[in-house]
């Protein structure tokens, strides 16, 4: 079970206070009406789902109710860093 540092509360909390919300950094197209079905489908459904480093959104649901980003290894479950919405990850997969 994860022990997660909330960047807003400034301390570690038990996983039971949080919910994972899927892949981070998925920008909603600025002009949806001019997206093709293909582009919209990619935005809606297609995911990296990496084995290894993963950037995902979490919400401190039973806490400050703020969303934030987390970089986590999906195999070892190590949390490499958490960072606020709008910020960039400093730990990224070598590709």
């Amino acid at each position, binding site marked *: 079970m994860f022990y997660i540092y909330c960047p807003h*509360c400034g301390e570690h909390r038990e996983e039971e*206070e949080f919910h994972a919300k899927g892949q981070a950094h998925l920008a909603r197209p600025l002009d949806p009406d001019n997206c093709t079905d293909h582009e919209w489908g990619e935005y809606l459904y297609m995911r990296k789902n990496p084995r290894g480093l993963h950037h995902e959104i979490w919400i401190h649901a*039973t806490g*400050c109710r703020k969303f934030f980003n987390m970089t986590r290894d999906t195999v070892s479950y190590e949390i490499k860093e958490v960072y606020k919405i*709008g910020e960039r990850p400093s730990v990224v997969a070598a590709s």
Partner: protein
Amino acid sequence: MSDIIAPTKQAAVEAASVETVALMDQLAGTDIRAESPLYHADLATVAKQGPKAGGVTLQEHKLLGHLVIRGSQDNAGFLAGARAVLGFDLPTQPLTAAEDGTLSVRWIAPDEWLVILPGREAFELENRLREAMSGHVAIVNVSGGQTVLELSGPNARAVLKKSTPYDVHDRNFPVGKVVTTVFAKSQAVIRRTGEQNWELVIRRSFADYLWLWLQDASAEFGLVIKD
């Protein structure tokens, strides 16, 4: 979702005109019966008939005024207005609280605080705050939707350890700290108000469940109800 960087906006300067929100004094005359969320449990009678000594004491601080205040810490007009009215700074340090007599303020989130004060003073405070604060702010009266429970006694901490995964040890949870966290299958804003005193702010519709839970979890220590 998006990684669009939040545009840095200069705090709006124009005063938030009161008309833009619907202010409402929600309190009825004192002749009208008001029922706190645990009214149905009739704690007064339980207190009279129940044990007078035990490891855990539970008291409901009912019918207080609860105001949620929202605003940005980048908004000077917001912080200044709050200071002017409250007489002290909003606790901007996460997980802290500030109080003055019967008025207390809890940090809930970077842009959210919970003020609790005597019920009859809530509307007046809301008005003064709205007058004093400028820019993008919100004040929401949630007095009817919450209640305050005080858990105290030598075994209060033991009951907390059954109820929340949060670390309630002295080293992590000193007097004065506030956390919103999991409580049984519900949640609570927990503030440590003394060596053996803990304040729980809970939601109305969960109150009966939490009342059952606390009785069950406290049974082995002996639960005293205080009216």
